[in-house]
């Protein structure tokens, strides 16, 4: 790792600690090499993700900050621009719009902004994007339920979702697989069971 990357990460961490206590974002070192960091963002208010704590892993390439860090969600999330399976993110500043003057802080703030304003026309997860466009109420319901289950978001869980999820898991399917199937089929029990697996 070149010296610029290590010193810059150190400085960034210091700055984030001092500046960002009120902004609902957090970054910490995962090891001593400065090449893997763990981040956290809180779901912004007014969105289905409100209050959820989403964990991120941030890989720092050797050429940082001249090339973008590789960021993905560790916490499962239902969002058109984030893969519901792998957590991979589709965001322009993590790809070709990266500039060396951007920082990890701006990246996390951009991700928070992405949670408030999805871009379904440039999707990472086609199934979610289609639901977002065609059945917005099902999308909001699903995204909220996922945030409550995986990201510990507060609030009363949707009774219908809880019941259907229970039904499918009682048939012997894992919770994650059941939830994925139900969500992908907009909570139609019959369709979900047809396409599960």
């Amino acid at each position: 790792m070149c010296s610029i990357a290590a010193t810059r990460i150190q400085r960034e961490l210091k700055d984030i600690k001092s500046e960002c206590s009120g902004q609902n974002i957090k970054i910490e070192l995962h090891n001593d090499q400065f090449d893997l960091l763990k981040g956290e963002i809180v779901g912004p208010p007014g969105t289905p993700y409100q209050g959820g704590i989403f964990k991120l892993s941030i890989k720092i390439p050797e050429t940082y900050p001249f090339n973008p860090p590789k960021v993905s969600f560790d916490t499962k999330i239902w969002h058109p621009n984030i893969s519901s399976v792998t957590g991979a993110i589709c965001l322009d500043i993590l790809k070709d719009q990266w500039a060396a003057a951007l920082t990890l802080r701006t990246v996390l703030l951009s991700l928070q902004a992405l949670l408030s304003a999805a871009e379904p026309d440039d999707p990472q997860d086609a199934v979610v994007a289609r639901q977002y466009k065609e059945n917005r109420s099902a999308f909001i319901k699903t995204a909220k339920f996922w945030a409550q289950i995986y990201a510990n978001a507060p609030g009363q869980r949707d009774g219908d979702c809880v019941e259907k999820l229970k039904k499918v898991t009682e048939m012997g399917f894992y919770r994650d697989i059941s939830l994925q199937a139900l969500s992908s089929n907009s909570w139609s029990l019959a369709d979900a069971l047809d396409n599960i697996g």
Partner: protein
Amino acid sequence: KLLDESGVQSNPDSRSGVKTKPPHPQKTCGVCLESFHTSKPPALGCGHQFCQRCWKQHIEFAVKDGMSQGIPCMEQKCNLLCHFDFVRQFYTLPQDPSLEAAYNAHLFRISVSSHYQLRFCPGVDCTYVIYGETPKPRKVQCTGCKTTFCFDCGTPPHIPTNCETIKKWLTKCADDSETANYISANTKDDKLPSTQSLIRETKNTFIPDFCWMCMGDWKNHGNSYYECSRYKENPLIASTNSQHQAREALKKYLFYFQRWENHNRSLHLEAQARSQIQQQIEEKVNSNQGTWIDWQYLLRAGELLAKCRYTLQYTYPHVYYAESGPEKTLFEYQQAQLEVEIEGLAWKLEHVGDYQRGDVENQMDVSEKRRQTLLARFVTA
């Protein structure tokens, strides 16, 4: 600290309009987040200043990634690109020959490929650059490695098919040829094992003449009206269901693909045959049957055959994509004529002993004329 304060105070004086800059302002580089002292930090016209070390790293990584002209400013959403003189200062002071070489190589590559009259030779490991007076699709040959290619698109020459069509065709072949291979492997050959083996076994004895292309009786072909190169479309196809249409589309593609492949294969086989001709000539000269110069026409015939066959091969993609109408009908007619002459020439060349020199020369002349007629419409002055 005092200097720092005075630096802040001596900012632009709005009243007098005189700008006085502090001698050594301290700034924080937005990339490495470290402060640096310099009177003139490197910046592009946009004024985004970063420290010397970060600029150099940025440019080094960008050049390593294959960029030269398109290296952007490091500031977010700044679209300004680094120009030549700006980049130059980072490899001249201090001297960095590897960066300079890499940057110049990329710059050269970009300059050539964006110039409308210049093309890189597509030949393997060839470093020549081809200059063309007017950029248009035409056959050119590299003087270095002798590769021939289309000046416009860099693929092998493909007249009479145009650049777009040949691209579509080659992609289609790459995508579909496995299907084609499968079908040809499981249909035609299975149906005709006896004929195939018959041809192999009775190479030197008499076999009934048949058309290799359509496997029909050659008597029906003759010289009168050769039509094996034309695909007869089913006129009722529009009214049938989509499954039939799909099958018909595949049939049409396979028809043309087979002919394309056949000529391609023949080209390879005849390349081997040409080296045999060379041997035959030597034998003949050694056994006092004429002089070396007397037999040169055979070599010329071989070359002409290859040339005509190549042209013919590239007529099939054109016809496949051509819209039906009088133009296509005429083209198919001329194509069939050329096909007949080429097969005649190939036959005569294979059975050199049975034909006079005059016969072969005549056939060559006719073939070349047919080729020229076919291409006349496509050759732009």
